[in-house]
């Protein structure tokens, strides 16, 4: 694939996520989606860049802000949208909802809603790779708000000690709900924490999908070679509220506008134009993506609701022959 072909592909993925999230927001406003809805708008470059850096056998997992990662990993938008609509065709059969996207076929292992709760789980997935002597690497995403909690510490401690093949990707979008990082950490650069776990640490700008991809690729290589985990702070920003119920009063419109100038979609679109891709090609790509999202909405709306039998059968897994 040529460089601009690959970049086009990444751009399309980011565009699909952006439009998916916008349609999800609309459906939420119409009451077709319930519960919490945490949008990934503004952060698309992180999941897309990360997924471009890994292989099919590698694993990914993240927080409740999980639509972008699932889509970047290849989940069909219809399946994702159906989950938000509480439908049986959803990736978690309508039982999980927005915060719990799972897609084991694509090694997308959730969708976790307890801050810090999945970091050790991610380390466990990486532990398995090591146990079975497989080459797969795990990417574990979380927000900067998770860096003060015990789960973060224990996940990183064990991964660092045992040199597990995992990359901890801290998406620093500057806020944890309404709280800016200046009020939750004495640090400016979170990657300083890595040394305390005997692992590599780095802090990068996340607005350029190629920068993200390249830096994560090298961290993945490090892990795959058995050299241990990396703690990577990726500086990003969310354009919407924490969830749909958050009006975002804690930041100024000026701040938001300023940030939007670095919108990762804009950044990449400009790079594509600079690389000689012409506007009509971009528009065509965007239109096909629009169509895909529109189809996902109709699919979700017309799908069958989540089923009570499935719910009842999903408390305990059947055990294999003893």
């Amino acid at each position, binding site marked *: 694939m040529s460089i601009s072909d690959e970049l086009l592909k990444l751009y399309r993925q980011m565009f699909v996520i952006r439009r998916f999230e916008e349609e999800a927001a609309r459906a939420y406003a119409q009451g077709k989606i319930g519960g919490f809805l945490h949008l990934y708008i503004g952060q698309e470059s992180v999941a897309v860049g990360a997924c471009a850096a890994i292989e099919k056998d590698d694993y990914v997992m993240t927080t409740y802000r999980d639509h972008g990662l699932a889509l970047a990993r290849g989940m069909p938008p219809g399946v994702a949208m159906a989950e938000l609509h509480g439908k049986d065709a959803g990736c978690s059969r309508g039982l999980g*909802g927005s915060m719990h996207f799972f897609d084991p076929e694509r090694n997308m292992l959730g969708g976790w*809603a307890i801050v810090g709760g999945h970091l050790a789980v991610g380390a466990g997935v990486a532990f398995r790779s090591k146990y079975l002597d497989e080459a797969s690497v795990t990417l574990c995403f979380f927000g900067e708000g998770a860096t003060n909690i015990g789960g973060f510490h224990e996940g990183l401690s064990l991964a660092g000690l045992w040199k597990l093949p995992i990359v901890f990707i801290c998406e620093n979008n500057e806020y944890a709900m309404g709280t800016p990082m200046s009020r939750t950490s004495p640090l400016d650069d979170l990657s300083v924490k890595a040394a305390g776990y005997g692992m590599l640490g780095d802090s990068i700008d996340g607005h350029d999908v190629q920068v993200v991809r390249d830096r994560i690729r090298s961290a993945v290589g490090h892990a795959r070679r058995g050299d241990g985990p990396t703690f990577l702070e990726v500086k990003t920003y969310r354009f919407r509220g924490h969830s749909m119920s958050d009006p975002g009063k804690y930041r100024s419109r000026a701040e938001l506008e300023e940030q939007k100038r670095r919108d990762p979609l804009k950044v990449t679109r400009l790079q594509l134009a600079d690389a000689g891709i012409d506007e009509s090609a971009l528009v065509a790509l965007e239109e096909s993506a629009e169509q895909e999202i529109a189809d996902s909405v109709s699919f979700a709306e017309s799908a069958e609701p989540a089923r009570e039998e499935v719910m009842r059968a999903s408390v305990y897994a059947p055990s294999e022959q003893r």
Partner: protein
Amino acid sequence: MRTIRYREAIREALLEEMDRDSRVFLMGEEVGHYQGAYKVSEGLLARFGESRVIDTPIAESGFAGIGVGAAMTGLRPVIEFMTWNFSFVALDQIVSNAAKVYQMSGGKISVPIVFRGPNGAAKQVGSQHSHSVEPFYASVPGLWVCAPATPRDAKGLLKTAIRDANPVVFLEGETLYNVSGEVPDEGDEELIPFGEARTAREGTDCTVVVWGRPYYETMKAVEAISTALEIECEVIDPRTVRPLDTASIVQSVKKTNRCVVVHEHWPMGGPGAEIVDTVQREAFDFLDAPVERVASLDIPMPYASHLEDTVLPTESRIRSAIEKVCYA
């Protein structure tokens, strides 16, 4: 009497107690600048300042522990969990530390602390965010556990909790915050003692014990059944599940000879089963039918709205249980 929302009742209790006693402070995620994730602490930061309304990082076990240390040395912390689901990462602080210090110091150091926040399901927030935690905390000696259903009880119990010398687990409810109800007028201070049930409705045919959110489903069910079948239920809300006012419950059952217990926590164990145990033991000769329970189904909470409704204790399940014990 005035009518206010549950949210405001909690806020008033906090405000009055913080006004009364400078040792009281509120600590938790988003309690200050954000005015509370559910706007319970609206205005408190402006009134009391950052030293007494303290936003924390996401570190429940850390700030619960800070509360324990502060309480041991004379302050009166109110620790907010954004929801009680997040108390699980801090459970050791509550169960192994807060509940134990008085005992393991030989009665020398008390821990006057309140842990509070919304308990139980909200609406479609999924299995990790929908726990009713009574079975976890009510089993632990050294803790008190309050679960008020009405604004008046919420206010009066929270004031009592803040003045109590022991750790209190205070269970509110996201869907309760918008409920309106009467509370005493300003200036009429009311402290509701722990361990005193409230008779929410008098009746002669069946005792229904309920606390927290399903109180409202229960009240609907008992009115409907009164109209439809002329069965008159006596509704007893214990308000605190530790201590539990077993005397009032037993007394009522001795009158009605029938009992249904309604709760949102899962069926296995908890205060729900405890009440049944007490009733069958202390009112054995008075029971005309086995005690029935209506609980959430024994299933992690699903996301889809219609399935969530199936799992929660519904008006119709409550009604069926009452009919069953009344052989109606």
